């Protein structure tokens, strides 16, 4: 467990009282052992998950998928098809669970909301000038509230990496607080875009900053930048979540997104979640995969377990 000294524990995070205080707090966090983090994830990746445990992991992973389409070429038809797939990922097998959420651009929220009505599947919308986040604050706020008004119950915002990397932490903090307010009852996922944060230390700082500012979820990436989600980065975020719970008793979810394409990858993440923050996070309310192609691989593996022979992509929908 991370040993934070009494300087930090006094807080319900009055550390955000000024830029200087925030700076002091974030830079007072212990540094990340880069080699250690990579070695730890490599070791956890060697776990062998088979038979019934694998079947459980696959169904859990399907229930955790935020089925995502974030393309300039998205059409209402494509979004409707995606929603139908989210409801019944494998139409041939009624025991197949549905996904956690559908994730779309704000302009597609009304279409998706209509298509998901009554299904219990969450509707996530990216907002705040996704994926760059380079827009005036008023635009970001409007982007967010418009998505919520249109029926999104989860908002995926991007942090202001420009301000973060320039060390203007309070600006980033205030932005998240303002967006959180604009979200009203909708859940807020904060995208750190770890591929642009350069160092693991920055990932830890950004994770804490987002959680202090009120994030319900912290998310690795937009999926538009490489590298996207990696195991070490997600490990550092999970550790931050674990330490934050110990400090404040508030639970925060984690969502790796981008670059997770195979069942094997997904199971590695689940093992890491279990070993880092525990079983409490092995639930779609607390851990999600932002993915599109992953779902088909999960379905193929699921079919393989059910039928006893290898499945092929010809038998599943493309999107």
């Amino acid at each position: 467990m991370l040993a934070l000294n009494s300087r930090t524990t006094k807080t319900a995070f009055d550390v955000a009282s000024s830029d200087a205080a925030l700076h002091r707090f974030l830079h007072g966090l212990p540094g990340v052992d880069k080699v250690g983090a990579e070695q730890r994830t490599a070791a956890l990746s060697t776990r062998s998950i088979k038979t019934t445990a694998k079947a459980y992991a696959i169904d859990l992973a399907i229930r955790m998928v935020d089925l995502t389409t974030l393309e300039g070429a998205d059409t209402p038809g494509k979004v409707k098809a995606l929603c139908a797939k989210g409801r019944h990922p494998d139409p041939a097998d009624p025991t197949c669970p549905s996904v956690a959420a559908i994730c779309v651009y704000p302009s597609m929220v009304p279409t998706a909301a209509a298509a998901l009505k009554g299904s219990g599947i969450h509707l996530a919308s990216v907002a705040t000038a996704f994926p760059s986040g380079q827009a005036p604050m008023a635009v970001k706020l409007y982007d967010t509230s418009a998505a919520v008004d249109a029926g999104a119950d989860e908002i995926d915002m991007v942090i202001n990496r420009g301000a973060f990397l320039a060390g203007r932490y309070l600006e980033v903090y205030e932005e998240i607080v303002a967006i959180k307010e604009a979200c009203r009852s909708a859940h807020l996922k904060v995208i750190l875009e770890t591929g642009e944060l350069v160092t693991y230390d920055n990932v830890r700082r950004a994770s804490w900053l987002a959680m202090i500012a009120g994030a319900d979820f912290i998310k690795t990436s937009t999926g538009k930048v490489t590298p996207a989600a990696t195991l070490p980065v997600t490990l550092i975020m999970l550790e931050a979540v674990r330490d934050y719970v110990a400090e404040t008793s508030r639970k925060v979810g984690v969502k790796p997104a981008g670059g997770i394409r195979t069942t094997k990858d997904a199971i590695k993440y689940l093992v890491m979640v279990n070993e880092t923050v525990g079983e409490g996070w092995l639930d779609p309310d607390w851990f999600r995969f932002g993915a599109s192609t992953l779902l088909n691989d999960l379905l193929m593996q699921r079919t393989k377990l059910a039928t006893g022979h290898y499945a092929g992509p010809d038998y599943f929908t493309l999107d």
Partner: protein
Amino acid sequence: MPSKARVAVRKTYKLFIGGAFPRSESGRTFEVDGNNVALASRKDARDAVLAARAAFGKWAGATAYNRGQILYRAAEMLESRRGEFPAEEVDDAVDRLVWYAGWSDKIAQVYGSANPVAGPYFNISSPEPTGVVAIIAPSSFLGFVSVLAPAIVTGNTCVVVTPAAVDAITFAEVLATSDLPGGVVNILTGSVAEVAPWLASHDDVNGLDLTGVDNAELALTLEQSAAGTLKRIIRRSSPKWTDDPGIGRMTAFLETKTVWHPKGV
């Protein structure tokens, strides 16, 4: 100068998957004629199908002329390494590769057609490759080449299973130096009875060549599980490999696409 005893450099014959020579995922080996050879598992078969599928688009899209060149190149490389293959079969094997190389840009003329139709249209039927073909190869080297070449010359990619590992993997070294894109041919050495059922039932395999299956009962069950996904099949047989092969092995894994095109008066 006194002659110095050298330490023997012994060779391990590994699998050929996606253009690389990996060991079996299972770590198992078996012995063939005193050589250590990788024993393929079902997961190697799965990986090989993935590699074959990934290679299919580019290989099927390559010009027939280019595929012919590459097969001819394989014949050249085989010729230059002829000492490593069974002496009584290697001449025929080289000739067989050259023969099939010549067919690459002619099969469409023979097997396709321009159809007369009542209307201002061209109506053209042209053969297209089926996809990924799983091949159970016969144990003779000439037989091996004679089932492999016709499957790939038309643009299919393949996964070949054979217990005759040494010739097969030495031939893989020939293919690897012939500009053949990685994954077009994948070779699994090991037990047919262990690996073949996984390929026969695999949803992402489109054709199955059972020529080399030596057990009639196994051949029947393989055909039955291949029926689940309507694979094209060449049935078990033991032809005389030195005979004229005909075009049957090529056409078995071709599909005919017919298009209508307005004549535009």
